[in-house]
């Protein structure tokens, strides 16, 4: 739960960031419209991690169970409520597909235009929106009691949902990120994208847990931190797998993708992403005292989020010859981030007051 005053302050801060971000974006569109679409694609890809990560965790919990859900549920619900906003947020980027994707005006030698063409792209985008929002509705309003998973009779929906989610997230990452370079192909790429999104969502939710959970919920926070540690290791593992394979093959069809990203100044974004997203979290969360310290967990989550922003930029932006201004990238992150945060805060408070209400009724019945 969150105190009234800090809630109001957070809302005010989010509004200020929103105004600042919108101002930046408006100036950015006037100065360099093409770069705005690219910056917006990166912010769209980054913030989508919040609802996607939350949704995945709820569906996994339906099948696995775990006491930590008692603490995480209201926050995960608030994260999942941002799904409509986060999925539709792709539209401002996708109105200008030719500015983003070279396959919209393909070279005659490009063989995969049966998949990479504007109509098919937009159709698939619509399918992701519908599928993910349906799953989000199921995760939000399915019959679940507090920390309990879903009723066993309905758990097959969660299982099927996870399978559909894995496939749709894979294709979405191909469509939006990998197809920026239409001849590049890596079969581990989809796992890195999924791990990126999951880490973004879990780090955001765990940051809120670490900042607000009472001391009696310390065990739940440590459990969630253990999950985050495992998934950051998984992310580093698949990301390194992809790099090692492509580096060893050294093929003309694959290595240019990395050359663009590690022999240019963009390498700094990779160092930030790996340092803040894996190396520091790994050592900070390795020992039990780290997982149980609110300050350590909150700091690690904040660092991971910064690392995920750097990763989104690193994936999207090096693809374009003329680099735009960094402040426009930041402004785009701010605008969507502030909108997502406002929605998250609203849903969190709403969910919190709902639980508080039922608790009061229960107590009243008791006494």
């Amino acid at each position, binding site marked *: 739960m969150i105190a009234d005053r800090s809630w109001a302050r957070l809302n005010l801060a989010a509004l200020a960031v929103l105004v600042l971000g919108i101002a930046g974006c408006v100036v950015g569109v006037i100065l360099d419209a093409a770069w705005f679409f690219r910056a917006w694609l990166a912010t769209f890809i980054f913030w989508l991690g919040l609802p996607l990560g939350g949704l995945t965790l709820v569906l996994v919990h339906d099948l696995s169970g775990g006491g930590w859900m008692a603490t995480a549920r209201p926050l995960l619900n608030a994260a999942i409520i941002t799904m409509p906003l986060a999925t539709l947020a792709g539209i401002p980027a996708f109105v200008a597909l030719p500015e983003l994707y070279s396959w919209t005006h393909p070279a005659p030698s490009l063989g995969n235009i049966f998949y990479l063409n504007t109509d098919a792209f937009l159709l698939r985008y619509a399918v992701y929106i519908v599928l993910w929002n349906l799953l989000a509705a199921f995760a939000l309003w399915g019959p679940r009691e507090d920390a309990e998973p879903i009723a066993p009779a309905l758990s097959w929906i969660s299982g099927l949902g996870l399978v559909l989610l894995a496939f749709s997230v894979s294709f979405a990452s191909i469509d939006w990120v990998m197809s920026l370079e239409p001849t590049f192909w890596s079969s581990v790429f989809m796992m890195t994208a999924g791990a990126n999104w999951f880490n973004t969502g879990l780090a955001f939710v765990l940051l809120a847990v670490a900042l607000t959970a009472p001391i009696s919920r310390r065990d739940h926070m440590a459990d969630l931190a253990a999950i985050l540690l495992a998934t950051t290791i998984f992310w580093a593992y698949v990301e*390194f797998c992809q*790099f*090692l394979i492509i*580096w*060893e093959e*050294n093929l003309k069809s694959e290595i240019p993708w990395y050359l663009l990203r590690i022999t240019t100044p963009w390498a700094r974004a990779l160092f930030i992403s790996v340092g803040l997203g894996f190396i520091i979290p790994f050592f900070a969360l*390795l*020992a039990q005292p780290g997982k149980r310290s609110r300050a350590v967990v909150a700091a690690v989550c904040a660092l991971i989020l910064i690392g995920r922003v750097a990763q989104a930029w690193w994936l999207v932006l090096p693809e374009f010859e003329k680099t735009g201004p960094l402040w426009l990238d930041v402004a785009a992150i701010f605008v969507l981030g502030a909108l997502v945060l406002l929605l998250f805060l609203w849903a969190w408070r709403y969910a919190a007051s709902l639980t508080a209400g039922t608790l009061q009724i229960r107590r009243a019945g008791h006494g």
Partner: protein
Amino acid sequence: MSEPRLFGLVGRFASADSLTDAARQLRSLGYREVEAYTPYPIDGLDEVLRPRRRTWLPLLMFIGAVFGAVWGYFIQAWDEVLNYPINVGGRPHNSWPAFVVGTFEFMVLCAIAAGFFGLLASCRLPRLYHPIFAADDFDRASVDRFFLCVGARDPSFDPRRIRRLFERHGAERVSEVVA
């Protein structure tokens, strides 16, 4: 003839709860040399017997992991850079991406070996005999009975008092065990 030295006083309990209660009271009376022998792990008993005790095993495994990583990287880099340099597709001799996999494997191997042998050592293995084996019916500690032992080394060891405490908590049998 001298009196045989006492190892401790052992109480046999029929349930995990009565054993845990007896252990809790012994601890609150200030006894420190309290050990339990049960057929299965009992939730919360560790906290009663050794409150806030930190084990050194994780630290040992971490040291093993660091040692393994350094060693694993060193033997690859030493071989490829100093011992027998071969030009592989124009890549640098110290090609760290290629060494990461072997480094990781060595790290896991050494961490697990440290954990395995550390666990044996912390259980005082290999040790073929322990005085507690002489307690009456002790083989039932791995079947259906719960044994609690207060060591004679305990500074406040008082057999009569402990015997009364065991019996108050429903011990089926209390026996002295010689060292």
